[in-house]
């Protein structure tokens, strides 16, 4: 995977949110030198849609707009690299809030930027893969809970053993060509419907 990260660095869409001063220009130029597709932005925009990586100047004055930008990251947030001039706790809090994967300190210089970009991208990929893995496990766990509930319903309604209930659900699922978790959910829903009190009109 590591070599793939390096191959993919070129062509990344990088949004550089930084005042267009000498340091901002240096940042943009060096990212272009590395081979990224760079778009400068200033003042801090409300959203960073379409960017793979956001390089963001983090300072006290922009606290409000930085937090607004953070709230706009729904779904998968971009890779975030913070540019800082101070390391007092309130700046550190902002760096954590924005979900930075790496930090560049001022004065900005070319050496080190490629390393930060690589490490940040690698962490971002790991986090994304971990999040996807967790989501998969959570879905699996919810499915298992549903199977358990469906079995209890069948055991109570038909007076059968747990093993027989399991076989029943499995056979049904196979005959309807649906996953066993889906069959279990259908049983639960049907049971809820049958047992729900009639609505008063």
């Amino acid at each position, binding site marked *: 995977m590591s070599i793939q990260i390096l191959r993919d660095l070129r062509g990344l869409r990088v949004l550089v949110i930084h005042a267009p001063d000498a340091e901002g220009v240096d940042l943009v130029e*060096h990212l272009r*030198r590395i*081979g990224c597709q760079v778009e400068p932005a200033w003042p801090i925009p409300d959203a960073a849609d379409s960017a793979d990586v956001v390089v963001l100047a983090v300072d006290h004055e922009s606290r409000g707009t930085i937090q607004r930008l953070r709230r706009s990251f729904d779904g998968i947030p971009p890779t975030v690299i913070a540019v800082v001039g101070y390391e007092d706790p309130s700046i550190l809090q902002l760096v954590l809030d924005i979900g930075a994967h790496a930090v560049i300190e001022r004065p900005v210089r070319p050496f080190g930027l490629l390393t930060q970009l690589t490490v940040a991208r690698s962490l971002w990929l790991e986090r994304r893969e971990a999040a996807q893995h967790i989501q998969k496990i959570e879905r699996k766990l919810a499915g298992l809970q549903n199977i358990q509930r469906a079995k209890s319903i069948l055991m109570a309604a038909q007076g059968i053993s747990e093993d027989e209930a399991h076989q029943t659900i499995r056979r049904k699922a196979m005959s309807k060509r649906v996953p066993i978790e889906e069959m279990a959910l259908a049983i639960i829903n049907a049971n809820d419907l049958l047992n729900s009190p009639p609505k008063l009109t």
Partner: protein
Amino acid sequence: MDEARLAARSWRVGVLFSQTGVTSPVERTQLHATLLAIDEINAAGGVLDLPIEPVIYDPESNPKQFRTLAERLLGVDRVRLVFGCYMSSSRKAVLPIIESYRGLLLYPTLYEGFEYSRHCIYTGAAPNQNSVQLARFLFENYGSRFLLVGSNYVYPYESNRVMTDLVRQNRGKIVNEIYVPLNARASDFDRAIQEIKKTSPDVIFSTVVGQATARFYQAYRAAGFDPTRRPIASLTTSEAEVADMSAEVAEGHITAAPFFETLGTATARRFVSAYKARHGAEAPVPAAAEAAYFQVHLVAAAIARAGSDDPDRVLPELAESEYAAPQGRVRIDRENNHTHLWPRVARLDARGQFQVVWNPGVRVRPDPYSMVQSLEEWSPDGIAGLAAPSDVG
């Protein structure tokens, strides 16, 4: 022109090439070429009527010495422009000093890329200006099973990474990757020789540098291998390293570089004969010396236009400036401070001289941050058909 400069009555520049130590054979050629260019400029009246005055130290192929002497050049001798460095370790030692004094380093050596400093101009080849061309030539003429042998430091690792990538693109194979100490003795190559016997590769790609190079080629010859069928190919084996070998040891091996001393163009012949007139007919003139030579001329022209040797004023004049170098017209790239160069591949003949066997005739834009070199794309900078220098003049 600034007052201080008028008072000094000269343009003082620093010159840092090793006259002793492991890479001194090639660094001495860079020193000679730098001084040749300075003498030419001074003989023609200097820059804005003032001569260039070199302040020369010997850093002994030792990065710590490089750092100390850079500090002295900028802090005590008050120079602002420094010509020097061969190994990356010496450049890395010198650059922080140059940056802190807001000076400018002119670095005339091929290296592994992945660097940019506003305070450095790189006039040697980046990997996209020699590795790709060498690989293509080798695949077409010898095959794609490679054994890699290198000195143990950053340039060989990175060169080998690039070469491995190219070999894989060509569906070839790296049979092994062997590193020897920087100043390897003949016996340090025993393992490499055994591996060649065992694995029978099509090509040996050598990133051995300095005085160890001749020992490797000698060991190769002594083991009875035939360079016409299975050559050692290199980016670092230049005229300077070949000077330590007999013609019999050298014959048949391959090197890629933007310049060889046998180039037949008028500018190349003028440069080589001026160099040999000073240092003897046998004195080697490698690509590293050619870069050291043309970068002085580029800088002198930039000082003349800027009216100052203040790096902040010289740099904008250097960016995109062109010069008719011995290898062909070269140009500094504004975006990355590296140089547009003319790759060539040469084979050593029976007299131990490089003869160009492939001249693509394309000037190639430097791409120091290229992660993946491509056999098909070399970013020619668009003047290919226009000014391709003929090697047989």
